[in-house]
């Protein structure tokens, strides 16, 4: 980055956020005094070294790693709503790294590693629960893909293997593994390091740690235009005023093509809603995450006991986040085909989030033809699990001006050159 690391005067705090401890919990609990705000509100400065559009896990992670790893602290994260209110808050928060391509496996495994150490490094409990991840195969073709994925995973040193119905029954006793099931279960790809996490805590943890390092998080701040002069980013205009900046990072989901258009950059993305739903809480009975690509469903049980269901994207492109009855009906049918014992469970609510689908089911990361305009977009249905590694890599990309090796395969130029990273076999419904 041209401006480089710059010490900014007038920052109230710097370094690590205050630690949570049993003592502070007791003190606040007994005295009833207000907990300090997790991150601060700041007036919008006239200029920043880096402006990040989108305050989800990707944008906040990028801001945190810019400050923590590269000393670039004069950074603003802008969100038109509230932080974690888009894809990060709507995701089903499943983490795994058992992808299909070597590039994808390596990338997502780095993310899993960062998630594993996140609670300690951010000083915030993100409730990562490693429960194992089962992707069911209902036919020979999917069993073949599972075997393929297991081989690719094992070469990269990832714990991932194909298991049979008897082992599946031991892991998930409620699953119908009989031969008379409508969609018989022939086997599954078992990935023990996979699990679920508290997605809001990840967003808040990054916001808190970035804020302590001097990053400004601006909510309710919508970018309305990006100023580009002679192929170089000069600033952004927002509903709260104009900001001059040499670097803009587009970390939005859903609206990523519209934000990129402001800078004159076209993206190979179409926006589709994805619906998810949650049931009433019940006693813990489902330990691993269960996924069926054939039935377009994935199921996990949260620490509170609710079952979280997700589906594939809606059948047509849209920016609407309204739920539909077809989804609830289809979902219920598919879940009952897998676990008939759930027939009396009640759905509490359903929602939709926006997914930026790319032609090859892989993200788009790195620089663009506009100098200073970076993208971290195209996160389809797999963005949450990649938040930390994308933030880390994009921070390095911006700070050094070089594309890190780990995201080299995911550049925007791959669509012009024809080097796609096909992840449909592992990303389409396999969460």
């Amino acid at each position, binding site marked *: 980055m041209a401006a480089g690391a710059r010490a900014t005067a007038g920052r109230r705090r710097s370094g690590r956020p205050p630690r949570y401890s049993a003592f502070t919990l007791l003190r606040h609990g007994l005295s009833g005094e207000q907990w300090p705000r997790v991150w601060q509100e700041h007036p919008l400065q006239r200029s920043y070294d880096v402006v990040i559009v989108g305050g989800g896990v990707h944008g906040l992670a990028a801001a945190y790693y810019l400050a923590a790893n590269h000393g670039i602290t004069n950074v603003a994260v802008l969100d038109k709503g509230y932080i974690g209110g888009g894809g990060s808050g709507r995701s089903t928060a499943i983490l795994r790294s058992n992808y299909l391509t070597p590039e994808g496996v390596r990338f997502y495994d780095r993310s899993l590693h960062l998630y594993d150490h996140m609670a300690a490094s951010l000083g915030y409990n993100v409730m990562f629960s490693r429960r194992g991840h089962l992707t069911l195969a209902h036919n020979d073709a999917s069993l073949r893909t599972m075997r393929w994925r297991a081989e690719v995973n094992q070469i990269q040193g990832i714990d991932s293997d194909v298991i049979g119905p008897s082992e599946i029954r031991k892991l998930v006793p409620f699953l119908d593994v009989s031969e008379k099931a409508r969609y018989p279960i022939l086997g599954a790809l078992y990935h023990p390091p996979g699990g679920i996490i508290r997605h809001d805590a990840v967003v808040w943890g990054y916001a808190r740690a970035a804020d302590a390092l001097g990053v400004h998080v601006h909510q309710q701040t919508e970018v309305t235009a990006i100023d580009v002069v002679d192929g170089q980013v000069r600033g952004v205009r927002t509903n709260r005023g104009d900001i001059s900046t040499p670097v803009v990072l587009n970390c939005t989901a859903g*609206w990523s*093509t*519209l934000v990129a258009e402001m800078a004159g950059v*076209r*993206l*190979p*993305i*179409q*926006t589709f809603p994805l619906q998810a739903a949650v049931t009433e809480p019940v006693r813990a009975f489902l330990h691993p995450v269960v996924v069926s690509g054939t039935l377009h469903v994935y199921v996990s049980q949260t620490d509170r006991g609710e079952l979280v269901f997700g589906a594939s994207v809606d*059948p*047509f*492109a*849209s*920016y*609407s986040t*309204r739920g*539909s*009855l*077809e989804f609830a009906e289809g979902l219920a049918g598919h879940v009952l085909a897998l676990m008939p014992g759930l027939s009396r469970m009640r759905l509490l609510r359903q929602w939709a989030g926006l997914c930026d689908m790319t*032609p090859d089911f892989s993200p788009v990361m790195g620089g663009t033809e506009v100098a200073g305009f970076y993208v971290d977009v195209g996160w389809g249905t797999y963005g949450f699990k990649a938040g930390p590694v994308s933030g880390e890599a994009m921070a390095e990309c911006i700070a050094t001006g070089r594309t890190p090796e780990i995201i080299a395969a995911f550049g925007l130029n791959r*669509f*012009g050159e*024809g080097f796609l990273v096909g992840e449909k076999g592992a990303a389409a419904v396999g969460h």
Partner: protein
Amino acid sequence: MIQIRCPWCGLRGAGEFRYTGDVRTRPDPASVTPQEWRDYLYFPANPCGPVVETWYHRMGCRRFFTAERDTATNEVWTLEEGMR
């Protein structure tokens, strides 16, 4: 439920139809450059607002027709009445 008016069968639930994407002109394969072809393949229009699309009534008359839809609200207007 979203409803779409098929020019042949009338108003039906969206589940009966298949979305085939925005109307794009396919470049001539004989004369197209690789760059133009990749543009056509990979870079769809993705507006947040009205878009002209082709739909297929797969569980009805099995005809293709053109409709305009607002991608922000999912309001649908059929464009060509009686298209076959």
